[in-house]
């Protein structure tokens, strides 16, 4: 199971990096999404995969007995997913607006702010 998760995480990182190296804005945003999911899965797997051991504290005890699954990574992932969702939604709107205003989604064509003469009027 861990091996499978590791392979999928690696695939997500690879695909994400491949996509952000493409020239189209649409592919870049997909790449960024994949990368943030890859990071989430990485956190999930570094919390160790423990099956069937919920971190419940039995009556009369102050800590879970025996081995238990670490709940913290899931809390971290939840936070990261929500943040990632917000940022990605914003980026989608931004990229769409830039496509409308600039008339291109090719990042190689977006060079005016880098050029020496590309300063403000």
């Amino acid at each position, binding site marked *: 199971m861990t091996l499978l998760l590791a392979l999928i995480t690696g695939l997500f990182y690879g695909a994400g990096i491949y996509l952000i190296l493409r020239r189209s804005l649409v592919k870049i945003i997909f790449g960024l999404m994949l990368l943030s999911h890859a*990071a989430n899965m990485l956190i999930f797997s570094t919390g160790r995969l423990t099956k069937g051991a919920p971190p419940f504290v039995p009556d009369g005890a102050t800590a879970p007995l025996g081995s238990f699954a670490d709940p913290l990574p899931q809390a971290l992932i939840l936070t990261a997913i929500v943040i990632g969702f917000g940022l990605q939604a914003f980026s989608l709107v931004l990229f769409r607006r830039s496509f409308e205003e600039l008339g291109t989604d090719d990042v190689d064509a*977006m060079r005016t702010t880098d050029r*020496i003469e590309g*300063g403000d009027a």
Partner: protein
Amino acid sequence: MKLLLAIPILLPLVTALLMLPFRERPVVQRGLGLGASVVQAVAAMLLLIRVHEEGILVLQASGWAAPFGITLAADLLSAVMVAAAALIGLTTSIYSLGSIDREREHFFYHPLMQLLLVGINGAFLTGDLFNLYVWFEVMLISSFVLLVLGGTPRQLEGTVKYVTINLLSSAIFLSAVGILYGVAGTLNMADLSAKLPAIEQRELLPVVAVLLLVTFGVKAAIFPLFFWLPASYHTPPVAVSAIFAGLLTKVGVYAIMRVFTTVFTGPESEHVFRILMVIAPLTMVVGVLGAAAQYDLRKLLSFHIVSQIGYMVFAIAIQSPLAIAGGLFYIVHNIVAKTSLFYISGIIREKSGVFQLKKIGGLYSSEPFLAALFLVSALALAGIPPLSGFWAKLMVIRAGLDAGHYLVTGAALLVSLLTLFSMIKIWNEAFWKDDPGILPAPVERLDGRRMAMMYLPVVMLCTVILFFGLSFEPVYDLSARAAGQLLDAGSYRNAVMQGGRL
């Protein structure tokens, strides 16, 4: 009164929320923003005084003891950074009154500015690596919207670049945090600092350290991760450029300082410092050469941000107490001087209509007061005595010589000269040479009240520069104490792990 620690975060947050219903009434939003910034400045000064007198201040949210709860901690480094952020927040909110148009105000410019400060202050005060990630994101989303607010094609293009690199760096940060949690089982900075030396499975720690360095390096715009900065910082209104230039990159530098002195204390840190020692001169040189080629005022200043970051990184890489003290003072000096220069670029634009140095001139005769303010800020940036930049450079260079890094120190001195060259270039082009008469005189002149709102922040910042320069001793004492505290990771650990209940 440990709640003093939460005020720099809560106050702008509450202010932003209070502003939201007043979309149709910019006067209320402006008043709230200005009032909150003044209170914030007072609170930040109180925090600094308290930390100075009583040592590290810690607040555990809801009384959950570290490392389980949400920790806010302020040592002198954090308190100084919060104070600097409050100063820039205050001056920017005044400057915005004179320079931001109705349209942007209508689309929540003022609340966004407050939310940006929430994120920045949160990043300075948090004692937890995952919370640092969250505060970075709060800061980022506000900065994204501020950068693109107005929606001109140039802004959109700059923002696309800025957003892409920052989302990428967030993913890297998150991966690093994940691996670190897997290795150490905690993300509280003090707890990590205590546990990392004893960890047996060390192979992954250098990976984590370098991933974090890349993340913070993107934020701080170090070589070779800086290309987004001069591509985006010159696109929004000047008030936004100025607060970005002053504060955002320094959050990255702060994070490097904090993480590699407090969290990582062992061989991983040494490794990172060796990398930084190579990166520092490259950052300085590439930045200043980039600036030399520019004739757009704000792009020129943007490249100088990069170049100046090199000095701070150099100071961090030396790691002697003097170097850290110098680095800290350098950060504060640079926040003040750089923001002031951006404000001035806005006034120049207002007077002459453009940022293009070749098209303007003659400002020395028409605006002698502005010329004087520019000289103070520019010479401070270049490091001419008796201004603040001189002492900052003196400390860093002295520390570099003491530690035997002659080559990098030589580069730092050379870059200093080139910085002076660029500043003189602005002086010659904008102030000294005659107006080339290419442009018609601006039709709309701002009324005196708005102009005063743009001048006042510059005067305030120039006063600070002069104060730092002329009465350097108390400032030096404070930096030295902050450096001592930062290098003594044990005191931070003890303060966080034992103190902090309400």
